[in-house]
């Protein structure tokens, strides 16, 4: 049976930014595959409700708020999670975000806010959890980049730059941590229209965007199986790779 290799039974997975969207979808899929979860994000209300969804699936959830751009916050969050669940076997660096602005109008603070949220947070969480994984001689890190780590988007330079950086951070960390038996891989999602459209114009623009993607828009269910595969023993011989889950958007 295929599910033997893919099973996450007995594993503890930490997903940052898991209060909603793709982070929530990956956390729920990993719970279905048998993992217990550490659910963390800045907004407590959202992660509490995801925690309940994990428990409904018969798994344990440790819910704790954290700002992943702050070292002290991450270190105390990881310490609390390990105290509660014993260890962390799988880390998904999913927290991220963007603020659109032209370069000519952008302040240093605005640049650093986006780069810290996407790139530096990935480094801080990996370093903190990686110390425990290295001591235990094994683990899986899954970073989340974006299709915009490969191509340019207007008014989004820090987002595009930081996501491209996550892709090469993945390669460098994979080479560095192979000696600790930690596999580091990355998912670069394309367009997943998970939020409700703001208004009619937003809905129309989305429809145009989706019509240009060979496989249309992504659904939350599409990322779960890939995250489970990369987190499982089935991916023990994969490391340093970025898998572009974009419905073929970047092919033409």
């Amino acid at each position: 049976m295929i599910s033997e290799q893919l099973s996450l039974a007995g594993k503890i997975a930490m997903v940052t930014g898991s209060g909603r969207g793709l982070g929530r979808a990956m956390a729920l899929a990993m719970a279905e595959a048998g993992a217990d979860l550490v659910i963390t994000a800045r907004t407590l209300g959202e992660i509490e409700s995801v925690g309940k969804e994990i428990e409904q699936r018969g798994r344990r959830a440790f819910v704790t708020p954290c700002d992943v751009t702050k070292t002290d916050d991450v270190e105390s969050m990881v310490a609390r999670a390990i105290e509660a669940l014993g260890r962390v076997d799988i880390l998904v660096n999913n927290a991220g975000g963007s603020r659109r602005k032209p370069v000519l109008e952008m302040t240093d603070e605005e640049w650093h806010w986006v780069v810290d949220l996407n790139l530096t947070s990935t480094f801080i969480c990996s370093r903190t959890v990686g110390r425990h994984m290295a001591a235990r001689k094994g683990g899986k890190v899954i970073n989340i980049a974006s299709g915009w780590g490969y191509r340019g988007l207007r008014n989004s330079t820090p987002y595009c730059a930081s996501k491209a950086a996550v892709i090469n951070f993945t390669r460098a960390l994979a080479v560095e941590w192979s000696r600790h038996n930690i596999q580091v891989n990355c998912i670069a999602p394309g367009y997943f229209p998970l939020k409700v459209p703001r208004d009619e114009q937003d809905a129309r623009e989305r429809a145009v965007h989706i019509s240009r993607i060979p496989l249309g828009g992504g659904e939350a269910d599409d990322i779960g199986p890939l995250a489970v595969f990369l987190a499982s023993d089935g991916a023990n011989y994969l490391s340093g790779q970025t898998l572009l889950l974009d419905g073929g958007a970047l092919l033409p």
Partner: protein
Amino acid sequence: MVFDRFTLEGKVAIVTGAGSGLGPTMALSLAQAGAAVVAVARTEREIQKTADAVSKLGKTGLAVPVDVTDSKAVDHLVAQVAMKLGSVDILINNAGGEFGFSKAATELTDEEWRQILATNLTGAFYCARAAGRYMLNRGWGRVINVTCIYGARGSVNHTAYAAAKGGLMQFSQALALEWAKRGVTVNTLGIGWFEDQPQSQPGPEAREQLKRAIPVQRLGLPTDVESALVYLASDASRYYTGQSIWLDGGILCR
């Protein structure tokens, strides 16, 4: 349930090059996930073993000897599979190899160049064209082209093989785009240095050197193939097309 997305129950898979190397492992991985498997290669004796192993798992296993460089034989194979098993859902283009031609470009004959291109690239096109007609009609299909490190990176004395495998990767992307709107995804599975490959048997010292060049410090094992292949062959990868998954222990990140 997330595991349900990986099931291949009710699917029919054709695996070329199914008699040797990682071919039998691929056939068995698909069967274990629920698929009926047609094992294809030139030599009947070897694929019969693969088909028997599939049958032992309680799945339909057929052995059909075909040379994938023979376009008519490939068309006949696919028609036969569709007739006997009802459909053609998954194609693994795994046939290929270098036939020991590690040769300087200046020494390579026309015939050797043609033979390597035919087996690794043209054969995959013939199989995809024939199987694709059935897949497009049914609105669901998976084509998985098997490539190797030479398809992504150059190597001394391997020009023909590198050109063929590199061509196969670009063929995959173009075909993915062509078939995306019709429910058929096309991806490549990249294979690094595995235990049972001829390239991995150069003697103990060279073998240790090869291992040191791989970030995870070991050669690949048959069990490393299973989950990636089933992910690509199943509904789990519905939104994934024109891409590669590399089972290379991290070689390509250095």
